[in-house]
């Protein structure tokens, strides 16, 4: 297997252009967390014409709801949640400049189109590998919606966060290509 590519967060277009479905990456920098309830609130803000709680341009959103941090720990276990539940909200955020998403599982056609049209990238982390992934999180701070508990928006500083490019900006799709390669029926 090839070596992972080290990339910085937030993302720039030249980095996105180099990434292809199936590439392993290690992300270092700042990423934001949000899942169902937070997405719903973000979209409601946009509907009201209000500003989002963080500047979304170039950013990564990591779909995660961590376990509570034990005393002295930075964060609890923090693996990806199913991305498909965010599909309804994602194209609008991509249009506003969101560049990277990290989660697990396939995305809808609308999300894949938005990724291609706006040069973004969707990455998958290994679902369930939550204790291992948490080790790459060096700082965590709630920046919005504290009342949502695990679903609050957090600003994370990560070092060598492990992920795999699932959908690149050129239409490459790891889920489709990988499965086609190993499918042994009809």
């Amino acid at each position, binding site marked *: *297997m090839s070596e992972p590519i080290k990339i910085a967060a937030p993302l720039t277009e030249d980095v996105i252009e180099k990434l292809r479905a*199936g590439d*392993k990456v290690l992300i270092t920098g700042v990423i934001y967390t949000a899942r169902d*309830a937070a997405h719903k609130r973000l979209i409601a803000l946009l509907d009201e014409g209000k500003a989002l709680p963080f500047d979304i341009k170039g950013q990564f959103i990591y779909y*995660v*709801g*961590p*376990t*509570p*941090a*034990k005393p002295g720990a930075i964060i*609890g*276990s*923090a*693996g990806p*949640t*199913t991305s*498909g539940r965010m599909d309804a909200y994602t194209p609008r955020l991509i249009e506003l400049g969101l560049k990277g998403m990290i989660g*697990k*599982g*396939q995305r809808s056609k609308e999300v894949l189109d938005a990724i291609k049209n706006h040069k973004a990238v969707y990455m*998958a982390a*290994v*679902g*369930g*590998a*939550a*204790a*291992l*992934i*948490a*080790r790459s999180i060096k700082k965590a701070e709630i920046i919005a919606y504290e009342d949502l*508990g*695990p679903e609050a928006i957090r600003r994370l500083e990560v070092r060598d966060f*492990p992920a*795999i490019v*699932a959908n690149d900006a050129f239409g490459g799709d*790891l*889920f489709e*290509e*990988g*499965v*086609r*390669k*190993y*499918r*042994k*029926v009809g």
Partner: protein
Amino acid sequence: MRKVSAEEITKTVRALCISAACDLEPDVVSAVKSAAVKEESPLGKEVLEQIINNFEIAGREHLPMCQDTGIAVFFIEVGRGVQLEFSLEDAVNEGVRQGYRDGYLRKSVCHPLKRTNTGDNTPAIIHTTLVEGDKIKIKIAPKGAGSENMSRLKMLKPAEGVEGIKSFVIETVSVGGGNPCPPIVVGVGVGGSFDKSALLAKKSLLRPVGTPNPDNDLDALEKELLASINALGIGPMGFGGTTTALAVHIETYPCHIASLPVAVNIQCHADRHKEAVI
């Protein structure tokens, strides 16, 4: 009659919640390990190795292996010779409350429509049966939503028979793709009624992974389905590969002459189950 106190139940449940979240049972660990050896996709192999590595970190450092520590599902067998002078449900829920709080587990239970979190991961889902003896056996199988959401139930026509069952199971795994965190264990409940088939599917997941079905016909069907599922190519996390499922477990029950219920309960690799006897 042997008296058991509410405190004993609560204490046991509290400990079960915490250990289930952090320490995976050896049957699942060894199933993932042997899958990692056989997996044909290099990326798939790496994913499986990451999963094994994660199990080890979680066990060693007493951390939840997955951030989704689930809704707490219990199967409780109460011996007829046990005297309970309190609400068993209340005692179990108190144990869940304490376990999820003291174990730093995620509280993932909310009102179904308002979506407000109950704050303490209660209420639990509790299935109780009466058995012989004077002991209480408590089994916990906390369930995350990623795999639970990919589960399905269908009322087949009896004419569809075994072929209908097979295609529904395979279709369910196919539709789930990478969402339920494969490699998965596929629990299948056949027969009974609408509700009973779902319960059978869930119960089938309690059988240790890698042990054969005691019924020869069902054992053969499980093996055939496992081969068909792994031929789908979904692979670890849906990235493509030869390991989509670690096992298929089937449980059956007689049903009405006019119906054939089939329920498929998908279980992710974070296949947490623990039991204790009081």
